[in-house]
């Protein structure tokens, strides 16, 4: 008999509907699990058990009155610490925001609360979402629940760890270059980066505004659809959020892929990709073909230039976004007396970690007079070419399938001194943000005891097609039942 904290949101939801369990019982089970394993995993930066309990009690009242709001009413989840939560510390895992208590909620957080979802706390991440392992957290790295000597991935590593460790039933993360999908792959769960503009970024602390997107981390494809149902939709507070018809993504979770056209871009299976990873991904594609899908190799020739273009565009936007941390309005301020420029310089030197400083430096340089055309503009032109490659591919294919990450989770410290190796961990996920298209990472097996993820991509607002392909694969495999032993 599985423990409550091991169940999926949709299983728990049915139990709540049948009055077999209360939201408070589920919440207490998860809080007890947190007390038990959090010292090993380190997934949370801030826990709010009192908030969670009172939300659970409210959910139970609604259920008793027959007024359950929706399928996630009463289900406890975790939230990445770069989404503003009114009255609850929000740090972005940065010392510069160590004492920041937002005066407002992010739109995604409001939607979560309005759906009756119970919020357990805020999860660890790479500082300002800059990284692929949570080792850049200004506090301490999180651990991978499948092997605590390994990283959980990043930057939403804390969110992925909570779900994989049973410390939350689901979680919200954010994805700028793979920060939902890569940790989902490393931790053996489902992670979705929605189409740019599908989920409001209002209240998400900006890293690279043209790439950032909030999305769900869950055990199953259906849970992913349930949580996307809650957070998707136009928001007047975010001018880049798009007006698309509200839909029920669970309707797309059908085991039905006959005739589905799958493109397999060869660039994602090349050098640097572990052959055990590509083997499992290809095996998954074969399984989908056995169910009636049609797969064919294809090519996205501009992908080879994506890494360089991304590491100009994202830092350029970051250098501009992070200019707000000036020691005046909120956050850390240096104790040293230094005049007005010195105040900013010292405050930022003390508050930011090494990786954040590096990205601010490269971004500032790329945007500075005389270099703009050679770097930033050229990177944006490459971005156009990448988008065109995808557009062309989606004329022919419904989905593209690739590995999510070239390898399984690596050891803590293994790549800390090798920035290029660390960045290569995101090589399969970056192009998706550059093009603005949706992408999901889905468990497709294990190598040496560590989870492997495959990535399913579709055209803008093609989430339904992703859910259909993902669900069909998931239903014929046992991976969704696998739980890390801690």
């Amino acid at each position, binding site marked *: 008999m599985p423990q409550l904290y091991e169940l999926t949101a949709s299983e728990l939801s049915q139990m709540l509907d049948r009055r077999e369990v209360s939201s408070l019982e589920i919440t207490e089970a998860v809080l007890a699990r947190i007390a038990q394993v959090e010292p090993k995993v380190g997934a949370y930066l801030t826990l709010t058990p009192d908030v969670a309990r009172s939300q659970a009690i409210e959910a139970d009242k609604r259920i008793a009155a027959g007024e359950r709001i929706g399928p996630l009413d009463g289900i406890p989840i975790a939230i990445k610490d770069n989404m503003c939560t009114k009255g609850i510390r929000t740090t972005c895992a940065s010392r510069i925001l160590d004492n920041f208590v937002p005066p407002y909620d992010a739109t995604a957080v409001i939607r979560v609360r309005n759906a009756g979802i119970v919020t357990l706390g805020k999860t660890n991440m790479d500082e300002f979402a800059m990284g692929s392992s949570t080792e850049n957290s200004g506090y301490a790295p999180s651990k991978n629940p499948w092997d605590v000597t390994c990283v959980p991935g990043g930057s939403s590593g804390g969110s992925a760890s909570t779900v994989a460790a049973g410390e939350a039933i689901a979680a919200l993360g954010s994805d700028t270059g793979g920060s939902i999908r890569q940790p989902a792959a490393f931790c053996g769960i489902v992670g979705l980066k929605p189409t740019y503009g599908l989920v409001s970024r209002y209240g998400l602390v900006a890293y690279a505004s043209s790439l950032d997107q909030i999305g769900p981390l869950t055990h199953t494809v259906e849970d992913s659809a349930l949580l996307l149902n809650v957070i998707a939709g136009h928001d007047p507070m975010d001018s880049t959020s*798009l007006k698309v018809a509200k839909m029920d993504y669970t309707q797309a979770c059908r085991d039905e892929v006959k005739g589905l056209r799958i493109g397999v871009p060869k660039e994602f299976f090349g050098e640097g990709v572990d052959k055990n990873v590509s083997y499992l991904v290809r095996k998954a594609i074969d399984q989908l073909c056995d169910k009636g899908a049609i797969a064919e190799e294809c090519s996205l020739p501009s992908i080879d230039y994506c890494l360089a273009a991304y590491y100009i565009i994202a830092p350029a936007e970051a250098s501009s976004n992070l200019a707000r941390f000036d020691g005046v*309005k909120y956050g850390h301020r240096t104790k040293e007396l230094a005049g007005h420029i010195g105040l900013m*310089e010292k405050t930022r030197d003390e508050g930011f970690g090494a990786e954040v400083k590096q990205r601010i430096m490269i971004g500032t340089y790329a945007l500075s007079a005389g270099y703009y055309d050679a770097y930033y503009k050229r990177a944006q032109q490459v971005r*156009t070419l990448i988008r065109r490659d995808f557009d062309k591919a989606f004329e022919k294919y419904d989905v593209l399938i690739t590995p999510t990450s070239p390898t399984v989770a690596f050891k803590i410290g293994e790549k800390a001194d090798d920035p290029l190796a660390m960045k290569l961990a995101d090589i399969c996920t970056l192009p998706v943000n550059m093009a603005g*298209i949706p992408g999901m990472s889905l468990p497709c097996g294990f190598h040496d005891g560590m989870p492997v993820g495959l990535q399913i991509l579709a055209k803008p607002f093609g989430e339904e097609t992703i859910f259909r392909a993902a669900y069909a694969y998931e239903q014929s495999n046992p991976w969704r039942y696998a739980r890390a032993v801690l």
Partner: protein
Amino acid sequence: MTLSKDDVRKVALLARLELDESEIEKQGEHLNNLLNQFEKLQELDVEGIVPTSHSMPVFNVFRKDEVHPSLSQSDTLANAPESRDGLFIVPRIIE
């Protein structure tokens, strides 16, 4: 191209980051490494390609110019390192 220590100091000033000598050295090395990798982009012919700053085709999103409730002064100042009489306090700028 290679950035000198002075170039790195200039970028650090633009970025409002006070870096000590060892950090200048490290940042310089890192910047030069990245710039080498960026050289790859020069291989591509991008003549006439329109730059993409934003992946979705939305432009000029307007709303009605109406007053809505916003954060109160006290909420806005609550996180300030220093405030007084409803103002953010900063160090003296003019001697």
